[in-house]
């Protein structure tokens, strides 16, 4: 957290005494932070929240009591800057716990019901029953890859405990079994795991992610890119998407008030909008090719944001472009990031009737034509938090936007390359989705397959595990 980190820097590198202030909701996080950095900062706590409180309430916070100590906040602030540090003041153990390679590979033998309960109570599941990862099932799952079970796929760092989690191919296979995946899904899940990205990052905000697969493996494992691709009806989409969240749980991101803070959460986290791009029906270049991969490579891409809005009926009154701008008006525009998910009918319309030859052509049009008053843009807390500091640094165009009269229109999607466009859907109606998702990463799938992919593979079974 920046308050503690910046306070440490000022204390240690600049010799400046500090009084770091936090809301009491984050006392546990602060405590962990102090413990593991070994610097006994004098954190002062206010009631929670500070955001949105009127001046009179904030004044009461200052003149009222610190919920942690029952002492007056402003007196603690003054004392933090003036009272010498004493041994008695800090009683915590500031030495990190030493721990190396702790893991019990097999669980105690028990009944199916008890083991299901154990997995749930230990925070290893999303609450729904899982497929118990028996030795036989995991061994079968491992036939989906040519990689050694003990190969490390990802190393995850937990900030609160300063621990590294080493996650191997076998562990990913265990989670794949739990999620209900088949061996042929494993290469995609390994590719997702290799990014080390959580499906639900630690934040008080309702983060959400989308997982999209491109290339031949989409059809080989029967992923849905057509009718109802985002709906819960296809094994590959559901299992791969769920596996990512179960992986995220094993990586420690769901420990309450350690890594998991999302005040309301987000239902997208159950399946992470796992789809394939409908390359066959798209009139545009596949997304992974836009990112520099060959068309015949299989690739998984990750998009991260918070929200999406549907166009529900089509665009017979307004144009697709105009209606997309209306939908974007519900989103923040932070970092110029958006993801537009078009049914193939919409993409076809945009290309053949509206003249947008490429995805980037349409992204440029959006960049130029979506406008909001400066006050609306800067009035969004997320934008204020993440982009106002760039304006303060003099980074353009944000520095100039910050000086504009409130009613002046600005075009906040100033980077068309940050507007991602993908094609998904079954052409039953020309509809689309507009999301505030930023592109996060792409990872190749083929290196995780059971058998190497040959250049001449055309029968739809490239790299799949052998029949038993």
């Amino acid at each position, binding site marked *: 957290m*920046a308050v503690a980190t910046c306070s440490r820097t000022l204390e240690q590198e*600049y010799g*400046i005494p500090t009084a770091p202030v936090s809301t009491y909701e984050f006392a546990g996080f602060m405590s962990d932070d102090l413990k593991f950095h070994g610097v006994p900062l004098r954190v002062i706590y206010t009631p929670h929240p500070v955001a949105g409180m009127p001046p009179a309430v904030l004044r009461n916070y200052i003149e009222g009591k610190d919920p942690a100590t029952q002492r007056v906040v402003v007196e603690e602030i003054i004392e933090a*800057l003036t009272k010498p540090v004493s041994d008695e003041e800090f009683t915590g153990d500031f030495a990190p716990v030493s721990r190396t390679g*702790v893991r019990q590979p*097999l669980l105690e033998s028990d009944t199916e019901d008890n083991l299901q309960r154990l997995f749930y109570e230990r925070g290893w599941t999303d609450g729904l029953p899982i497929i118990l990862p028996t*030795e036989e099932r995991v061994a079968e799952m491992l036939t989906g890859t040519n990689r050694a079970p003990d190969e490390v796929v990802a190393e995850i760092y937990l900030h609160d405990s300063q621990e*590294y989690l080493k996650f191997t191919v076998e562990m990913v296979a265990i989670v794949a079994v739990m999620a209900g995946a088949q061996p042929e899904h494993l290469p995609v899940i390994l590719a997702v795991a290799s990014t080390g990205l959580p499906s639900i990052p630690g934040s008080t905000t309702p983060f959400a992610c989308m997982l999209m697969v491109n290339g031949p493996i989409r059809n080989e494992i029967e992923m849905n890119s057509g009718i109802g691709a985002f709906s819960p009806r296809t094994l590959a989409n559901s299992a791969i998407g769920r596996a990512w969240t179960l992986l995220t749980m094993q990586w420690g991101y769901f420990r309450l008030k350690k890594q998991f803070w999302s005040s309301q959460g987000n239902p997208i986290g159950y399946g992470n909008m796992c789809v394939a791009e409908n390359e066959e029906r798209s009139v545009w270049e596949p997304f992974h090719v836009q990112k520099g991969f060959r068309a015949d490579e299989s690739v998984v891409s990750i998009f991260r944001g918070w929200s999406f809005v549907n166009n529900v009926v089509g665009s017979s009154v307004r144009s697709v472009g105009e209606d997309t701008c209306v939908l974007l008006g519900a989103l923040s525009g932070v970092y110029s990031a958006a993801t537009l998910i078009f049914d193939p009918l919409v993409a076809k319309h945009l290309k053949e009737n509206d003249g947008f030859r490429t995805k980037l052509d349409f992204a440029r049009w959006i960049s130029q034509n979506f406008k909001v008053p400066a006050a609306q843009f800067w009035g969004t807390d997320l934008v204020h938090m993440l982009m106002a500091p760039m304006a303060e*640094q003099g980074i353009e165009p944000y520095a100039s936007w910050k000086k504009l009269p409130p009613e002046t229109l600005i075009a906040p999607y100033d980077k068309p390359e940050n507007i991602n466009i993908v094609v998904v859907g079954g052409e039953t109606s020309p509809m689309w989705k507009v999301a505030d998702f930023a592109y996060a990463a792409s990872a190749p799938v083929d290196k995780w397959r059971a058998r190497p992919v040959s250049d001449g593979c055309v029968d739809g079974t490239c790299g799949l595990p052998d029949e038993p």
Partner: protein
Amino acid sequence: MATLLRSAVLNPEAYRTVRSAGDNAPAKARSFSTLAPRLDSLNGKTVYLVDTGFGGSGKFLDQVQAWFAEHMPSVTTVRRKKTGNIFRDDTKEVWNEIKEKGQAAILGVAG
């Protein structure tokens, strides 16, 4: 009647280590010397109020500044907003200014 599962069930947890492989640096010991020396008093001193960027921090520091003006007018308060990413310590200019012109800093508000 429930029966024991015949197959062994694998643990999905990761290997946990405090440090990455090969890093044998000793654990940090508890130390109070890592804090800067405290001031004798705030009278006549310049205290920077640094908004680290979370929602409401600026308005909270407005009230801190007003409180000092009313109750400790001998203290000079200077408002600054941390530049850069709100989740990182990636600024230098504000810290250099505090070092050059100030004697203490109040940072907030986390949360």
